[in-house]
């Protein structure tokens, strides 16, 4: 086009050259960029090993805030901590309603909702029985049968009354007591993920014991891969992998805490209706849902209920689950994406 002045053309050449250089530089910049391995942090809280991996901005600071939030929650909901909300509630059993922190109210109301939906297969008021077994300490023991039956009288979610408006809760009789052990790790994941949400991190995974919270999506955009522990192996053996987007995962397995007396092995998943370890044909239940506390309580409840009776409960809470029974059969309830990696198990699916 002859009408363009030669000077203008020269400028265009320089501009184009600069644009090209810019593009090449920027692209190469990203190619040489280190792959984001994430920032890892570990701590002990909630009676568990807490592991976090965070991707994105301020990872170090956010991880320490999240760990702090978990510790704070523990100070509120652990019945063993003097002055905690739950300790105060148990102290005032049969006397008066106790003012609770909003976080305690949240966990307690979710615990109560699962107890109601499962007819007490999970029950937050299990303390009179659970404190006899002492599974949350290093030295669990077999309780005296008479003591156990006496204490069973004091277990029942009907004894627990909550007043959402006044933010209070009360226990009906002296001797009632709340133990949030079956929901605490999941609730801790909720607390951590809440911190992530309020921060600038792009994605994070938190594991509190066997409960896991997933937030955001990984830098490469792929699903989170959560390994499911092999009940017949050690801490490091998994039988397969779940591929998940964000959400929460909890597992209740009878292999977690056990002790043996006179050749009989007792595990820590107590049936609140009998006071003894639950006698289902399951060895482990993994529950996936949108709330950590719910996933934890549901995993316990489903273990106690067994596969058949768990299905309506899972449906009610919009949750999915993976059941492993004593015959090494895996049943997946729902559409969970699961890849089996062990040859010792078989997988089948169950519609929800």
């Amino acid at each position: 086009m002859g009408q363009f002045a030669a000077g203008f053309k020269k400028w265009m050449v320089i501009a184009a050259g600069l644009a090209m250089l810019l593009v090449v530089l920027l692209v190469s910049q990203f190619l040489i960029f280190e792959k984001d391995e994430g920032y890892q942090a570990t701590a002990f809280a909630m009676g568990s090993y807490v592991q976090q991996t965070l991707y994105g901005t301020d990872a170090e600071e956010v991880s320490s805030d999240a760990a702090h939030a978990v510790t704070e929650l523990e100070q509120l909901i652990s019945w063993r901590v003097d002055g905690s909300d739950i300790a105060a509630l148990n102290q005032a059993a049969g006397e008066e309603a106790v003012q609770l922190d909003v976080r305690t109210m949240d966990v307690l109301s979710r615990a109560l909702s699962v107890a109601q939906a499962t007819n007490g297969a999970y029950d937050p008021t299990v303390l009179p029985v659970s404190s006899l077994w002492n599974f949350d300490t290093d030295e669990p023991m077999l309780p005296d049968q008479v003591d156990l039956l006496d204490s069973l009288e004091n277990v029942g979610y009907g004894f627990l009354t909550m007043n959402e408006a006044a933010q209070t809760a009360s226990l009906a009789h002296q001797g009632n007591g709340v133990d949030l052990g079956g929901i605490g790790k999941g609730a801790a994941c909720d607390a951590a993920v809440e911190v992530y949400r309020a921060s600038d991190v792009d994605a994070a995974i938190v594991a509190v014991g066997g409960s896991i919270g997933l937030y955001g999506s990984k830098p490469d955009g792929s699903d989170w891969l959560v390994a499911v522990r092999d009940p017949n192996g050690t801490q490091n053996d998994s039988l397969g992998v779940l591929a998940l987007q964000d959400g929460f995962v909890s597992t209740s397995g009878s292999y977690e805490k056990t002790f043996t007396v006179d050749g009989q092995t007792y595990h820590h998943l107590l049936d609140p209706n009998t006071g003894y370890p639950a006698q289902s044909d399951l060895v482990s239940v993994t529950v996936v849902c949108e709330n950590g506390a719910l996933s934890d309580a549901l995993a316990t409840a489903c273990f106690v209920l067994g596969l058949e009776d768990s299905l309506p409960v899972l449906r009610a809470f919009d949750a999915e689950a993976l059941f492993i029974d004593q015959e090494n059969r895996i049943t997946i309830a729902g559409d969970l994406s699961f890849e089996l990696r062990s040859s010792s198990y078989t997988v089948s699916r169950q519609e929800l």
Partner: protein
Amino acid sequence: MKSSARFVAFTGILAALSLILSMLENLLPPVPGMPPGAKLGLSNIVSMYAAGSMGLMPALALALTKGIFSFVTRGVTAGLMSTSGAVCSTLVVWLLLGKCRFGLMGASAAGALAHNGAQLMVAYLLTSSAVLYYAPVLVLLGTASGVVTALALHAVFQPLERLRQTGW
């Protein structure tokens, strides 16, 4: 070029051709396993022809037309990505083909790389870092699609030239 009216008309035909090609390409089913943003870039045939044979200004006009069309039909994000990609690749192709006397293959591959690079940048700025993971794959796919486009242009070059010069 004898009359400016014919020049404008021809540019319009090229613009229409370019839009049709990119629409046709969108109709193709996505290939499974391909990262997002990996496309054949058929409409680059037209942009390359314009950049090489007609000059920078008409070529840029084509790129902008394509970008505006994307804005209107597919929204702001797609529009920004399309515009930046088209403008960058047009500049590169014009420079290599017209100024530095590269072959069609080289210019086309470089143009495709510039296209992908610019789109990747915009995608990164607008969304998340997830897209960057695919960068090396996009480099290879971009080079390959550049070669394909060059072959296609080589085949249609003479008919296009005849159309431009004789009007038929």
